[in-house]
Each structure stands twice: as structure tokens, then as C-alpha cells.
């Protein structure tokens, strides 16, 4: 049963990623992104034209974003297994795992707010729209810290059968390096580092999609490794001591 729940959590993370693309791309229509260089009137016009689509898309995200939590729970548990007890790495992993679903939900609240009364002063709609993108694209610190922790955990794992293969550590560093440019959107209104730019939006989005698929596959294998370890522990009656 344990293995089934863990694996279901991992699949849920992948399912949520597919749902995120549907909600943001096809329903709300914020991928491809709006243009930060648009005037307040142009931005307000987009929210007026698509207000129903946007309200539905963001309402779904506000509700469903928390289904990402079990995926990060599995990731945090695997880091804890490497650490051997609830150390700084695994606890930080849990703390930051909260920001991921909450960040999705929070940014959607602002965009839903912008679409809620599009007839208001365009400046207000523009400001709410800015907050949406600042959180959605610009808040990269938590996830980058998390993947750096996963990379460190991979490298220090000295157990006979490690949870993660070592290339997964380097893969996470790759993701961390490419995720960083997202934090520059606060400084640009045009060009590749604006929130609709190739370096700040399209590459980080692509790399995130690759990351979550690869991480899911690695976590599925880590769950099998853990299950085998547990079976051995039961057979030899050597349970993991409670920390």
C-alpha cells in the first residue's frame, strides 16, 4: 500500500503539470505570456475580452494547485532518507515545498482579481497583472534552493544503494543555473529577460517541464529502492531506528 500511495503522489505531480499547462495555456490563455510593454489600456482590454476564460482558468488553479504538495512530499522524504534523520536539508525541503503550490495559487488570485472587474480603471488591472507575472515567473528562489538541496543530497549519499543516481545531481544543478534568469524580470520591460522573454520565460518553462518529468521517473525508481530496503529490513528484523 505504501508503495502505491508514494507512486500515486508522483503521478499526481505529473498530472498537475499537464493540468497546469491546460489551465494556463488553453483556458486562461496566459501562455504565451502577455507583453509587459503593453499600455494599461491594452492590458485591460485583454482582461475584458477574455475575462470569463481567465476567471475559470485561474479559479481552477487556485483550487487544484495544492495537488502538487504530495509530489514534493515524496521528494522531501527521499532527501530525509539520504540524511538519515530530519536534518536541515530535509526540513528546508519541506518548508520550501509549501511555496510551490502556494505560489501557483497566489499568483492566480491576483490574475483572477484582475479579470474579476475588468471595467475598472485600467491602471489597477495593469498593476494586478504585473503582480501575477512577478510571482508566476519571477519567484524562482524557492524551487532553485530546493533543487540545489536535491543535488547536494545526491552527492553526499554514501549508502550502498543510493536513492538517486549521481547524474541526477548534475541534472539538478543544470536546472538551478537555467532557472536563475527568471529573477531578472523585475528589471526589464522588453527583451529576453522580460517576463515574456526567451531567457526568463520560455527556457525556464521548458527546463521546468523536463525537470518534473525526469524527477518523477527518478522518484519512481527511488520508491522501488526504498520498498526493497524495507522488505529486507522486515526479513532481517532490522527496522530503521526512529530518529
Amino acid at each position, binding site marked *: 500500500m505504501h508503495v502505491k500511495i508514494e507512486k500515486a503522489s508522483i503521478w499526481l505531480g505529473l498530472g498537475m503539470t499537464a493540468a497546469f499547462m491546460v489551465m494556463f495555456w488553453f483556458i486562461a490563455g496566459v501562455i504565451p505570456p502577455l507583453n509587459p510593454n503593453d499600455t494599461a489600456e491594452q492590458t485591460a482590454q485583454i482582461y475584458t475580452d477574455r475575462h470569463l476564460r481567465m476567471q475559470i482558468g485561474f479559479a481552477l488553479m487556485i483550487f487544484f494547485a495544492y495537488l502538487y504538495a504530495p509530489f514534493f512530499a515524496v521528494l522531501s522524504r527521499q532527501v530525509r532518507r539520504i540524511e538519515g534523520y530530519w536534518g536541515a536539508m530535509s526540513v528546508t525541503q519541506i518548508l520550501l515545498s509549501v511555496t510551490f503550490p502556494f505560489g501557483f495559487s497566489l499568483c492566480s488570485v491576483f490574475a483572477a482579481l484582475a479579470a474579476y472587474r475588468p471595467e475598472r480603471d485600467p491602471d489597477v488591472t495593469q498593476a494586478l497583472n504585473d503582480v501575477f507575472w512577478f510571482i508566476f515567473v519571477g519567484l524562482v528562489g524557492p524551487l532553485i534552493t530546493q533543487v540545489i538541496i536535491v543535488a547536494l543530497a545526491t552527492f553526499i549519499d554514501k549508502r550502498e544503494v543510493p536513492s538517486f543516481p549521481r547524474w541526477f545531481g548534475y*541534472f539538478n544543478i543544470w536546472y538551478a543555473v537555467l532557472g536563475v534568469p527568471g529573477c531578472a524580470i523585475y528589471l526589464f520591460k522588453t527583451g529576453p529577460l522580460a517576463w515574456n522573454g526567451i531567457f526568463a520565460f520560455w527556457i525556464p518553462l521548458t527546463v521546468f517541464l523536463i525537470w518534473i518529468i525526469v524527477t518523477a521517473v527518478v522518484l519512481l525508481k527511488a520508491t522501488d529502492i526504498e520498498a526493497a530496503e524495507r522488505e529486507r529490513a522486515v526479513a532481517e528484523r532490522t527496522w530503521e531506528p526512529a530518529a
Partner: protein
Amino acid sequence: MNQMTLGSAVGGDAPTAEATRRVPGEPGVWIFLFGDMVVFGVFFATFMYQRSLAPELFDQSRHTLSINIGLTNTLILLTSSLFVVTAVRAIRNSQRRAAQALLAGALVCGLAFVGFKAIEYTAKVSQGHVPTENNFYLYFFILTGLHLFHVLIGVAVLIVLLTQARRTELSVTRMAFVEGGACFWHLVDLLWIVLFPLLYLVS
């Protein structure tokens, strides 16, 4: 005498090195290195595309860059790569002193690169060439900035390698880590070798 022992050691090593061909560092590190190269390839392609949209503007702006600083930085990075190669060889032969001196040399080169970059940025901004001036300068600052970010990571890696060079015996994992770190520094060098002509020279 020393020369002779060194020569015979190298001569003795060569056939075994040929017999067992292997990837430097652990294979996993190449996921990061190739992944990074692919994305920088996308960055370079984006620049070339933007350039094709406004060739005159890009060519005019290119002439306002100081080729001397760019060229100096190119030579500095090439020298640092040479230091790193020889340092890894010294670590492999357990020549601690030499390895430490060579890595310190590479570190000085890395910091000199950062210093020259700071001088260049300050000069450009004081001349009024800021990222918002035009698309060329936007991409100039972003591409060199992303590369500078890699140089800073590379400097941190070199410092870690310096701590490893103090050991006489390195385990297989540690040696692979040292090689992987050295490969990352070569990647930083390689990216600049592409970036320098792309920004400063191509007309």
C-alpha cells in the same frame, strides 16, 4: 634526473591511457555541461536572429565596444584553462605544491576576468551605453552577464578544487569530482571563446 623520471612516467602512462578510453569526470557531469551548452546555443541563436533584424545598428554598436578588454579577457581565460589542465595533471601525480600553485594561478585569472569585466561595464555605462539604449547593448549586457554568472560559479569551483589539491591521495569519487570541476572551467572558457567573436568581431 627529475626530467628523466617525469619523462619515463609520462611514457609509461601513455599506453594504459590509450588502452582504457574514458570520459573525464563522472559521466553525470556531462549532462550538466552539454545541457548548459545547448541552452547557450539557444542564447547565441537568439542574438544572431536579433542581429539579422537590425544589422547596421548591431555593427555600429559593435564598434563602440573596447576590443582590447575583450581580447585581454580571452587571453586570461585561455591561460587559466592551461593552468587548470596542468593542475589536474599535477593532482594526478600527487604533486601537491605544483597543483596548488597552478590552481591559484587559474583563480587569479578568473578574478582578473571579473575585474576587467567590472571595468568594462563601468566604462560602458558611464559612456551612456546602458541595456535600454538599443537591442545590441541589451543583449551585450545579458549575454556577458550570464557568462559572468558562470565565471563566478567557476571561481567557487576552483576554490573547492584548491582544497582538494591539498590531499595526497584522492579517492576515485574525489578525482572524478576534480576532473568534472576542471571540465566546467573549460566550459566557461569555451562559452567565452564563442561569445567574444560573436559580440566584438563578427561584422
